[in-house]
């Protein structure tokens, strides 16, 4: 194998050699430079290969032929091989990316670049402290040179700030090193470690100086203004290089040197990291400049890495996996995003909308962002999961909260940015150039992300149990994204059908709950995909997103442990976010949705972590045994599910997200996605049946939340003018019923909840499909702009009618079953007050149901709708499939409810229903669905015949056969009776439902923004002040560590 010392000889040799070629063709010289990096990377790679596959011993290089500690030695071990490989590859890719820059600046710039990469390689390899200092200086001088590859006042002043800061740091570092030599008598790191040379009191101060200097090189918040300016002021390619290489190398050095420090240093590192992680991500929120934003994110990520390093002893053998997972994600994603910044050439994150001109780059950006934010299936997800689990096992919940909080803040700004890129206004923005040398590194970055994701899952306990097959299919769908939508729709429907056929029968007779939910998710998927046939063109990006959501959903059902569950949950989140944001105006709503989802998921993750603590297994059963914190676990996980259920307080994302999404996406998310929360609650509550905090019974509180959600949701729904928002708000209401039912923790309560879930799936799908179909025709969402459509769209009318009958719980349809069960359950539970509220909410539901049918279909036809046609057949077909299902369920509920009852009996044996055919008997009364159906049908037929008979001779009135009494209406819509129909109710009780919850969330975000805005004022742009920050950081650290000055 090639001696690693040749990394030095190649880099330096080439750098010196370039001096001969000053005037030569720069194409030649830059090729030579790139070859040098490739050769370096090859050397690292072959060592890496040897360490992994043939168990090679670490290789020591003794320079000058003398043994250490008397000469400088280098070490090539497995970790060194990994890190040098990363650095050399980053050098190569970054060199390719900035090819044009190097061609313009000539060999001097290439020399500096070679020096930078060489310096970083050596600081990783070296085992000598002073040698580390020398090559650290090499790399920081070279960095100072790289910053000014673009010469303008910004970059030059940023470069000066950098050099000011780094020379101050190096003064302290040198001082520390010299005193380490004085107190230890050696400069060799191994010597210090094995012979414990640094035990004296003085040496501690010296070690302090050295380690603080290295920490400061990692740009900890808030002593990092200089670094942020560098990220902002230099070329994006340099930003990529710095965040990918410098930080990586110095991080490795820190890890190396901590070995000879006092163990308390690990705590220092963790604290520094946490401050950095949270602080930097907080400030990122206010940032509008893309490169500076990435700078904040870099600092944050390094902070997280420091936390991980600080806990390396706690994490034990998992440390390497976790650190590597986070590091590699940061490395790839950050350089990828910086490269994208170099391609888009837009400073303001709002202008990244330019990416829409090349959707493939949006995909790249998405991959990098989701990698950074720790979503599956990317390596950072696995690392973060394991980190939380391990820290929870060690009982470090405060740290877990810190990490999750910081991650959340990071998600805020990353996804706001992504939102701008996906949906921002882009018509005025210039098209960006796409030279090959800029695309190549990005593509390699994306492919590497996927490659490493694939590898890294297998290294984790339980990782192999994850189901990646749906993801392969999604990848396939992405590859054929250019195909016409109709073709892809057919493929997807066929595949889901096939998958359903594989999965659903398995649960028959074994697990009724999973049977129900897998049916809802899969059959629902098929039904809601059918309208997709209406779409022309290729509908880019829709199918991968939809499939991601559905695979997440079915993954939830199929999961047998918390790990698979969380994995699927996050997949579902990505998919649904990408689906929701497709709507024309849905950018802010999708953003809100994502924030609530991410926040909820982090609560869940924390709950899972607490449950997992101290238990080897990952299975759901650990929730049951998760004493003594089971109540807190319950609460945390419940919050996660409540965000998805849009329970009151967590609902503000829902109306916009559902209302603004595409016509066929709305039923997908509202009638299918929302059930994930219900499923989650079923899993949670069957495992933790009793949760109390102090005197408070958590389910009891959940019950109240459900009641209020139902009430407020229904009132809000009644006051909407937008048909889609009306249906969306009604979801909040229905989910309130479901939560209330679950919270009763009784047999009938649960039966009610599940019945409502099924009903909601059916009627909400039906209503959204019907209304979506109508809206596509009328081109308006406002109900007062519709009216009289009954004759034009009879099929849609019938669908909506059936839908609202089910919704309102009017016999004979299955909604009534839910109501009947509900009142039984309430009475048996004895929650009379809540019951009264629920009843009141049910009455309010009539208000909006009435409005839906009246405003859209009855009354007068608008002039512009005279030639309107029935909704598309692709919308009608799934509606009528659902209607048939509703009819069957209504007539024969026993086939579903009886097995559920049996299943429930294992948890709640009391108050079960007794079934006799279609006759259900509770202790309060009985109900025969089939008979009711027959009676109502009979009455209906009789009445219909009667009316037809009576109305035979009635006169038809022309539509405009009306006279205004010498009065012209000011606004045409006010002539529609349904406009602001419930204005008086609004006056009376509007104050109750003024969106104070929305306001309080707004206030929270306002506070956070204000704090961020004030805090970032410390970065006043003055290089001297930044140097002072560094010094203050050091002295404060000293005072804290030392407990005073002396």
């Amino acid at each position, binding site marked *: 194998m090639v001696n690693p010392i040749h990394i030095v000889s190649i880099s330096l040799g080439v750098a010196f050699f370039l*001096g001969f070629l000053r005037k030569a063709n720069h194409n030649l010289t830059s090729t030579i430079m790139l070859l040098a990096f490739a050769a370096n990377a090859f050397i690292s790679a072959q060592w890496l290969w040897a360490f992994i596959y043939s168990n090679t011993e670490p290789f020591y290089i003794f320079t*000058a032929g003398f043994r250490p500690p008397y000469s400088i030695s280098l070490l090539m071990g497995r970790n060194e091989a990994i890190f040098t490989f990363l650095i050399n590859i980053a050098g190569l890719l970054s060199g390719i990316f900035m090819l044009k820059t190097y061609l313009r600046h000539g060999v001097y710039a290439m020399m500096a670049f070679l020096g930078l990469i060489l310096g970083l390689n050596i600081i990783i390899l070296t085992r000598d402290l002073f040698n580390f200092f020398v090559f650290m200086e090499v790399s920081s001088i070279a960095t100072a*040179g790289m910053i000014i590859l673009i010469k303008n006042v910004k970059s030059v002043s940023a470069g000066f700030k950098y050099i000011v800061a780094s020379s101050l740091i190096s003064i302290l570092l040198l001082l520390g090193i010299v005193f380490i030599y004085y107190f230890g008598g050696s400069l060799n790191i191994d010597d210090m470690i094995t012979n414990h040379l640094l035990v004296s009191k003085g040496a501690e101060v010296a070690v302090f100086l050295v380690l603080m200097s290295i920490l400061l090189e990692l740009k900890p918040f808030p002593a990092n203004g200089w670094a942020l300016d560098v990220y902002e002021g230099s070329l994006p390619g340099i930003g990529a290089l710095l965040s990918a290489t410098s930080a990586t190398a110095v991080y490795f050095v820190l890890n190396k040197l901590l070995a000879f420090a006092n163990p308390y240093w690990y705590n220092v590192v963790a604290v520094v990291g946490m401050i950095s992680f949270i602080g930097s991500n907080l400030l990122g929120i206010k940032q509008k400049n893309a490169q500076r934003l990435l700078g904040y994110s870099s600092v944050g990520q390094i902070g997280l890495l420091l936390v991980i390093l600080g806990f390396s002893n706690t994490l034990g053998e998992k440390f390497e996996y976790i650190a590597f997972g986070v590091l590699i994600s940061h490395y790839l994603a950050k350089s990828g995003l910086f490269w994208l910044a170099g391609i888009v050439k837009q400073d303001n994150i709002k202008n990244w909308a330019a990416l829409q001109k090349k959707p493939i780059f949006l995909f790249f950006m998405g991959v990098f962002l989701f990698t950074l934010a720790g979503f599956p299936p990317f390596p950072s997800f696995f690392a973060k999961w394991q980190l939380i689990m391990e820290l929870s096992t060690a009982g470090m919940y405060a740290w877990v909260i810190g990490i999750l909080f910081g991650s959340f803040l990071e998600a805020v700004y990353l996804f706001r940015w992504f939102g701008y890129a996906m949906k921002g206004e882009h018509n005025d923005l210039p098209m960006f150039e796409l030279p090959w040398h800029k695309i190549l590194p990005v593509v390699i970055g994306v492919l590497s992300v996927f490659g490493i994701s694939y590898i890294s899952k297998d290294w984790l306990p339980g990782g192999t149990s994850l189901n990646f097959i749906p993801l392969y299919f999604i990848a396939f769908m992405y590859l054929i994204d250019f195909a016409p939508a109709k073709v892809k729709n057919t493929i997807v429907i066929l595949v889901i059908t096939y998958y359903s056929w594989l999965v659903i029968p398995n649960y028959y007779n074994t697990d009724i709950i999973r049977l129900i939910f897998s049916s809802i998710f899969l059959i629902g998927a098929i039904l809601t995909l059918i309208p997709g046939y209406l779409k022309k063109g290729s509908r880019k990006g829709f199918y991968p997103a939809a499939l991601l959501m559905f695979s997440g959903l079915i993954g939830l059902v199929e999961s047998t442990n918390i790990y698979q569950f969380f994995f699927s949950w996050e997949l579902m989140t990505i998919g649904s976010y990408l689906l929701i944001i497709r709507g024309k105006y849905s950018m802010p709503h999708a953003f809100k949705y994502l924030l609530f989802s991410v926040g909820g998921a982090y609560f869940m993750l924390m709950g899972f972590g607490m449950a997992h603590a101290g238990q080897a297994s990952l299975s759901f059963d650990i929730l049951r045994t998760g004493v003594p914190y089971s109540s807190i676990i319950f609460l945390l996980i419940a919050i996660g599910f409540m965000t998805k259920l849009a329970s009151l307080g967590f609902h503000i994302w829902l109306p916009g997200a559902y209302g603004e999404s595409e016509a066929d996406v709305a039923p997908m998310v509202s009638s299918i996605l929302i059930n994930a929360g219900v499923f989650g609650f079923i899993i949670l509550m069957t495992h933790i049946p009793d949760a109390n905090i102090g005197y408070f019974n958590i389910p009891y509180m959940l019950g109240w939340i459900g009641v209020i959600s139902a009430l407020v949701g229904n009132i809000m729904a009644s006051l909407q003018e937008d048909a889609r928002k009306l249906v969306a708000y009604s979801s909040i209401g229905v989910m309130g019923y479901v939560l209330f039912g679950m919270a009763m923790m009784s047999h009938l309560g649960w039966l009610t909840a599940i019945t409502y879930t099924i009903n909601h799936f059916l009627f909400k799908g039906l209503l959204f499909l019907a209304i979506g179909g109508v809206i596509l025709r009328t081109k308006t969402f406002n109900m007062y702009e519709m009216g009289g459509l009954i004759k034009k769209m009879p099929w849609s009318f019938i669908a909506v009618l059936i839908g609202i009958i089910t919704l309102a719980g009017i016999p004979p349809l299955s909604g009534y079953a839910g109501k009947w069960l509900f009142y039984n359950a309430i009475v048996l539970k004895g929650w009379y007050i809540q019951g009264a509220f629920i009843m009141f909410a049910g009455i309010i539901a009539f208000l909006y149901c009435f409005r839906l049918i009246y405003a859209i279909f009855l009354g007068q036809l608008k002039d512009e709708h005279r030639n309107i046609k029935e909704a598309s057949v692709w919308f009608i077909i799934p509606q009528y499939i659902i209607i048939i299902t509703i009819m069957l369920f209504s007539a024969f509920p026993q086939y579903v409810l009886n097995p559920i009852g049996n299943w429930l009996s294992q948890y709640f044996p009391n108050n079960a229903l007794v079934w006799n055919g279609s006759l259900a008997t509770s202790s309060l009364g009985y109900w025969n669905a089939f008979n009711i159906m027959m009676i109502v049908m009979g009455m209906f037929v009789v009445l219909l015949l009667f009316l037809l008979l009576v109305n035979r001779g009635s006169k038809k009135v022309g539509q405009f056969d009306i006279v205004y009494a010498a009065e012209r209406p000011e606004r045409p819509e006010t002539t529609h009776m349904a406009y602001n129909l419930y204005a008086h109710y609004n006056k009376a009780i509007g104050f109750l439902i003024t969106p104070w919850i929305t306001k309080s969330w707004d206030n929270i975000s306002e506070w956070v923004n204000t704090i961020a805005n004030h805090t970032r004022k410390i970065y006043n742009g003055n290089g001297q002040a930044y140097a002072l920050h560094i010094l203050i950081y050091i002295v404060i650290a000293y005072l804290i560590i030392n407990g005073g000055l002396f």
Partner: protein
Amino acid sequence: MYKKLLVFATIFILAGIFLKLYQNFDGSKTLNKTASYYAKNGASEVGSTNIVTAIVVTYRGFDTLGEVTILFVAAAIIGFFLKTNAKGTNRIRNLRFSSEIMITASKILMPIMFLIGAYVFVNGHLSPGGGFQGGAIIASGVAFFLLANPTLSVNHKVLSVLESTSGLIFVLLGIAGLIYGGGFLDNRVLPLGKFGTLFSAGIIPLVYSFIGLKVGAELSNIISSLQQIQKEE
């Protein structure tokens, strides 16, 4: 004022940290392990009279390589950072001409300074001094010359070739140590020779000479870059 107070307080605490270092310093009575090794074996293993040189060039030769790299990188950066416009050289610059004495002196002094520099780096293993010092003296000569004759400019090409050649030879000598000696930059490629003479200490005189040339060329390069700088319009 407020800021100065803050700076003062910070530096005051920093001084406290230094004081702590100082308190724990109690002089040295004997050489520590590492230094004793060099004292005992430096002469025999490396053959250099000047132990500092032995350390700089051989034992810690790798540091020196880094040092050379720093100067090299710094010179390169200054080179492209302050790059002269090819056309700009014709611009009439506001120069202050030096006195006749200065010019004459520089003409006489420069070769002498070059000679001194060369002497210093060739004898680096025998007496105080070595490549860096010698190189710096040479560069000072160049700087002096340029101060005296502001209109003249140094030929960058020659400097570059000199710099690159000596750098490459340094690296090659290092590799030679790897192949013929015990490791990268081992000086025992050539025989150690008679202790205390010019041609002794293996390749140390050679290495130091090339370091001297290289440093001289690099520093001269920096100086001449600074001299030629112009504002890019």
